């Protein structure tokens, strides 16, 4: 097995998003309900979703490892009582940093492209940040354009390429999201106009510039 994987204790993959954008469901975003992992009755729901959508095989022990130890980091999305998306994560010490790790993320095909995955990971990452994580990492197949775009927009960079990382022989990217050192400065300016954001941050660094007008 890949040493990187062994080091992380797990591996993640995905079927590349060759989404045959099958019958889309008509729904409004407000109908989607997000819940934190609530116990053993959620486990089969998560397993079914992940088994269907991700290429890497996981045993039930893998799921248990994550949801038993970090239930607060796993979320499920429901639409009218059906589970349609889930995220499974962990966090812990890794080479002197406290880091979060996104293990699995899935939204079923009819519900894709509506921001559900974004909402799910955002919730997990928020909890990680509040729990003192300095960074978040994950691996994604280089061919998984959807996931790469999604994480890119959340601020992840592609830190490394992992040669033939997956059992199916495909390369992976190790994605990383570094949190800024001063957390509070980041929760505030979120709702400001696009583009002014970096400048605010820069000004904190003592680089005066006033250039938008």
């Amino acid at each position: 097995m890949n040493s990187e994987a062994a080091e992380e204790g797990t591996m993640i993959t995905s079927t590349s998003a060759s989404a045959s954008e099958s019958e889309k469901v008509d729904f409004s975003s407000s109908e989607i309900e997000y819940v934190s992992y609530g116990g053993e009755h959620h486990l089969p729901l998560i397993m079914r979703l992940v088994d269907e959508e991700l290429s890497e095989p996981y045993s039930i022990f893998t799921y248990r490892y994550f949801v038993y130890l970090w239930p607060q980091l796993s979320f499920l999305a429901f639409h009218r009582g059906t589970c349609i998306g889930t995220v499974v994560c962990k966090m812990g010490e890794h080479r002197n940093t406290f880091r979060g790790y996104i293990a699995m993320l899935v939204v079923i095909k009819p519900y894709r492209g509506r921001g559900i995955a974004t909402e799910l990971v955002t919730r997990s990452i928020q909890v990680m940040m509040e729990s003192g994580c300095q960074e978040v990492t994950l691996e994604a197949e280089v061919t998984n354009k959807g996931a790469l775009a999604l994480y890119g927009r959340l601020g992840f960079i592609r830190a490394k390429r992992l040669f033939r990382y997956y059992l199916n022989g495909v390369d992976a990217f190790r994605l990383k999201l570094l949190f800024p050192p001063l957390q509070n400065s980041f929760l505030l300016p979120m709702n400001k106009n696009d583009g002014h954001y970096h400048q605010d941050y820069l000004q904190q660094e003592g680089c005066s510039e006033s250039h938008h007008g």
Partner: protein
Amino acid sequence: MAEKASLVRFLPVPSPSEQTVWADVSSLLNAACEDLQEGELIHGENFSLFAAMSALEIMDPKMDSGMESCGYRSVEEAIENNAAPIPLNHDRTIDVQCVIDVMDHLLACEATWHTGHSLAQTVFSCIYLLRLERTSLHPLLHTFCRIIRATCNSVISVVSDARTHEEEDIFIMAHGLPLKGEGDEKCLSMLQAVEETISRQLRACKALSSNKKVLEDIEPLQTKFDLEEGYCKAVLCRLRFRKHFYHTLICMRKPQGKGFELAKKHIASCLSELAEMVNSSVFLSSNASGICQTDAEDCTTASGCQPIGFDASLNGRFSAPTPPRAIKIFGWKKAVKYFEKLLHDLAIICSFSLSPFFEDVLRFVGQFQKSKPDLVARAHLHILLVQDGKLYGRDYFYDIISRAISLPDVIKNQELHKSDFVVQLGQLVVNLLKVLCTNAAWQRRKLGKILQDWSVTSVQLELALKRELGELSKLSVDENICIKLSKLLLIWSEEQTFWIASRFLMMGFELELYSPCEYCMVYWYLYIIFVKLLEKTQMRLAASLDTSKKKGKKKKDHPKDTTIDATHFSPLVLLLRCYICLSEGLAMMLAALSNERMISQKPSIFNSEQERFIQHFDLLLKAHVPDHISYVLFKKSTVHTQLTSVMKYNYFGDVQRITKELRGSFAGDPERLAELRQIEQVAEHNRIALNVIHQAGARDQSLKLRKTSGRHCGQMNAGGAFGGNRGVGPVPPEKGIFPLDHLHECDLEKKEYMACLKSSNHLSEKCKHFSKKYLQCRMERNLMAKQDLSELGFREELDKEGSKERDNKIEK
């Protein structure tokens, strides 16, 4: 139930010893299982949830390799059930057909193994190989299997000696396989004998068919006379390919590249036998009689038939304790292609001049890596470069270093290799060469790590130099030489450090690690690195001229400005200047576009560009390559950049000017010329892009390009990188901000636009009609992502004929 059962497997098993007493605990376990409620877990010191993850769930076909094979439980059982009969068929014609299929499938397996699968699941899925002694009654099959086994051993030894397998760990795993056998050293003579027999059979059949007298009485290969020639030929080229391939491997292992000339001949023979094999496929498939494989592309034999005697599941238990790997054996045609490429890559190694100059070595490795050679070829290069701690097993690395810094003879004769620093740098050079032989993904990570070592060594050198200078008061000639040596070593080691950094950054493009919105900072950092690299290169050149001048003092043939000439106008220096202009130009252009809101991206909610900067350049920043770089510095130097200033500095025009000068110096060096051409193209495309964008932006400041944000990034900068100063540049500059128009599909449009610009004194305003046509052409041909032209500042009205007056009004 399955869960509970598999938990049992993970209870600690004591190692058997004399005192071990075995007891049946099934009833105990059953009772325990009865007690467990649904969802309950067993906890134990040796059984954490983490450990449990590596448990394989028994009876789950996804996890349990045992579930997959519905086939035989052992090789013996397979053989008993006639899965690998000998002879393969009692009809001798069919027997030959089947043997050829086995040969072909083995080739396919071998290629699959070389490209990242386990030996157990590929070559050793062959039952004949697993029990080689059984085949001794079938000389043809037997010798073929033997040479395959010998070849596998030889390839494994190269790869494990080169330690390149660290990057591809499953390659050399051969646990439990019968790889070593008696008598393999004789495989070549056995092969020779079989080959001889078949050539005689071929001769005999040719003689018969042309009604000549048969010189000797020989039993034919098989029974159908009309097929005899075809089958003899098909078998012969397969045997000869194996023979020459094995010879190639042996020759290439000879120390100091001494076998390269012979190896080249064997490689040429391999290639022509491969061509023969391909030729034979028409004959083989038209006379095939076995069960046909369905898909022609996936077909693992030339005949198209399913081979006899293979069963991958038999070795299931030899594969690592992982879930079964999905494995697809190469199609035969693809396998032939693989071997052709491998042989070409090996031929490149054999043709290397074994130059003792470090720069040449780096250039060669870089050029070699450009064709993305696979593991086996890279392992051979590695073995060549570092043998017995010497370059090519021939030159001491301290000699290489002294040559690189053009050390004056006075010092050379001193005991250079006793200097701790030289030893240390020698070790760094060895590591660097090893790293440069690995695959791109691995290489970049390792380059990032060794950067630290180089930079530490430079710092130590600098400290030592300061100390020596401090003791200058008691100056003697000897000390002076010491100082000179330290100075040269310091400059050289810094130069290498910056070169490694530039390669590290550029490889990020090849590996697709940068998203378009990060290009600006990457080009900026590259620019800084290139400037530093140039500085060190110039210092080294000046220092070496200094020494040679002293040497030639009396001749007085060094006019004063040769130093300036060499340090400012040497081709190497000029080439570096191109890279500096190009990276600076791209960084500034991107900065300007984002400052003028022509590209922008939504801020991410969790961090900012600053964190992305820190993460991308983490290893460089930690190694202080160079000192005092920070995000704030990046921002300060780019935040005020405007398009007009980018236009004014004319970075891309400068590049084009320098490349023109350089072409003469590189005449006769096709690699360099190709590099120059690529640089020129990138410069040209970006100059045009800049013109077009500048015009679009200037006309309508209020243009809301921001709305289409994010996307713009991806569209305008289809990725860009360029070769390094020594040609080790990992990425050919395929793309600039615009992808290159390789087919010159939009040449006409471009020329019209450029001509218009010229005639209108570069008032791009007057040429928007042409620039629009040019952009449209690019979009139509996918040389630029499609987007509404209005987003680029072209209004609908401009489109209509006769709207010129209105046009003018708008502009006023």
